[in-house]
């Protein structure tokens, strides 16, 4: 059977094609573009104009919030997007049809990952432009901070994507998917230091939030975009970048294991 696999384009080529097709579908789907890309912008415009009090000498809460929204945006493109999109594809039999072809399963996932990466990158740039132009966020000048930004974003997107794929098996039908995924994302945003300054939350709430990726993504991003002195305002009195990395890697691994063990190509009634 070697000659058969040899005649087909390689995994990478197929994955790239799949990614292009996924991205095309995303961009042509107006609701998805609006919900995923413009909703965070809208939130920034609304809350950024309300959260104007100072939380640190020279730093308004809007700056803290805008950085948190970048993190929430990463979660939206990875987690909500896939946790809603995949059950819909499963319900409509698209996954079943793909399963009936010789497509290697990895191609499907590579396609999703590339789509999420492209959308997340575009969204992050969009939010950063807004944050810098209107909400007093300054871009860092040190290379190390940009590197931190890169790995926090990548690990953040990776963990959310894997969790989104894994979570897609929870929803029984496409219709119930948004109802299952959206509240989780919303609750995490409230308890992870997006809408409310993390250290103002009750201790038990901080403990719960610390179990999930979003808190750590936001914390990592704050280390890039907020003054170094604000590290003292964090729960541990520092940015804890080593712990950010550890938790996000752990969630990547957990998400990967869940994906591999629970992913379903067919609905329950399909057997």
């Amino acid at each position, binding site marked *: *059977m070697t000659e*058969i*696999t*040899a*005649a*087909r*384009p390689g995994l990478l*080529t*197929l994955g790239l*094609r*799949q990614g292009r*097709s996924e991205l*095309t*579908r995303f961009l*042509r*789907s107006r609701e998805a573009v609006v919900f995923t890309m413009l909703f965070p912008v809208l939130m920034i415009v609304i809350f950024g104009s309300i959260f104007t009090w100072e939380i640190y000498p020279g730093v308004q809460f809007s700056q803290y919030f805008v950085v948190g929204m970048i993190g929430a945006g990463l979660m939206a493109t990875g987690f909500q997007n896939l946790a809603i999109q995949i059950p819909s594809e499963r319900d*409509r*039999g*698209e996954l*079943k*049809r793909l*399963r*009936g*072809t*010789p*497509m*290697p399963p990895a*191609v499907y996932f590579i396609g999703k990952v590339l789509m999420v990466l492209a959308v997340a990158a575009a969204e992050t740039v969009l939010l950063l432009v807004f944050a810098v132009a209107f909400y007093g966020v300054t871009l860092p000048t040190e290379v190390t901070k940009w590197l931190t930004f890169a790995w926090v974003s990548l690990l953040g997107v990776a963990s959310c994507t894997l969790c989104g794929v894994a979570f897609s098996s929870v929803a029984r039908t496409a219709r119930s998917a948004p109802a299952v995924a959206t509240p989780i994302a919303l609750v995490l945003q409230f308890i992870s230091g997006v809408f409310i300054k993390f250290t103002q939350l009750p201790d038990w709430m901080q403990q719960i939030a610390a179990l999930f990726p979003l808190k750590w993504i936001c914390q990592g991003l704050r280390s890039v975009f907020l003054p170094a002195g604000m590290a003292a305002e964090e729960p541990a009195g520092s940015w804890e970048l080593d712990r950010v990395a550890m938790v996000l890697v752990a969630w990547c691994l957990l998400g990967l294991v869940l994906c591999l063990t629970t992913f379903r190509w*067919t609905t329950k009634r*399909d*057997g």
Partner: protein
Amino acid sequence: MPAILSAGFDIVDPMSSEAAIEVVGLRKAYGDHQAVAGVDLRVDKGEVFALLGPNGAGKTTTVEILEGYRRRDAGEVSVLGVDPAKADAAWRARIGIVLQSTNQFDNLRVGEVVRLFAGYYPDAEDPAVVVERVGLTAKAGAAVHTLSGGQRRRLDVALGIIGRPELLFLDEPTTGFDPQARREFWGLVRNLAAAGTTILLTTHYLDEAEELADRVGVITAGQVVEVATPAELGGRSQAAATVSWVEPDGPRSAQTDTPTAFVRQLVSRFGGAEIPGLSVTRPTLEEIYLKMIGEER
């Protein structure tokens, strides 16, 4: 035959090397419900085989086990010489599956979907040729969600045949078609069959089975109750014929096992003149089929 020549071949059944599908004693239960209760089935290579049966008879379960989608509880299954429960990419490249579709691949265009699927197969047909063959060339640039039901079905078929399958599964392919679209679709299936593709078709339309199938199998209550050519199913070829004609005082009809002799008598009675309203009919496949599944119920 020298022993060396038969090495590696199954010599128990001399025909078995020509089977595309071979099923013996297939069983599958969902909880207490025995959906498939001992199905035996054999489809030869190059054959068009229609599986008929009422909803809930075990048709879909059987086919989906053959397609590798479902696990079986018991029985032997061989599809193109492979157990579908151990299906790998190489096996999937040799089969084509036309599933029922609803609203799939929205936001992609016809040509884009066909090209995407072509990439999955080691020896795919030219996407433009396949789109042409299913009659969608004019719609190649159209978004999938703008297609009519019949056009969408053609796209399903295009995706099913893009990999040049040796064996094609067609699940109720013309449901929702208008008569014209059905006839065109039948032409497409005949072309595939003529090119040597083995086809397993499930359908609710008896005329479709009669038009397309070399043999039909009737499945009810999880078992295959008969396999025959459409002309012979349920003893159809030997069934009494109905001769109808019109006498001056009104229409008449008679059941007879010897319609030729009966008509000859009529001819002499009418003095060789044209017999008004003469027709000789056998029971339709549909009548035979309804009788068969009625008996099983």
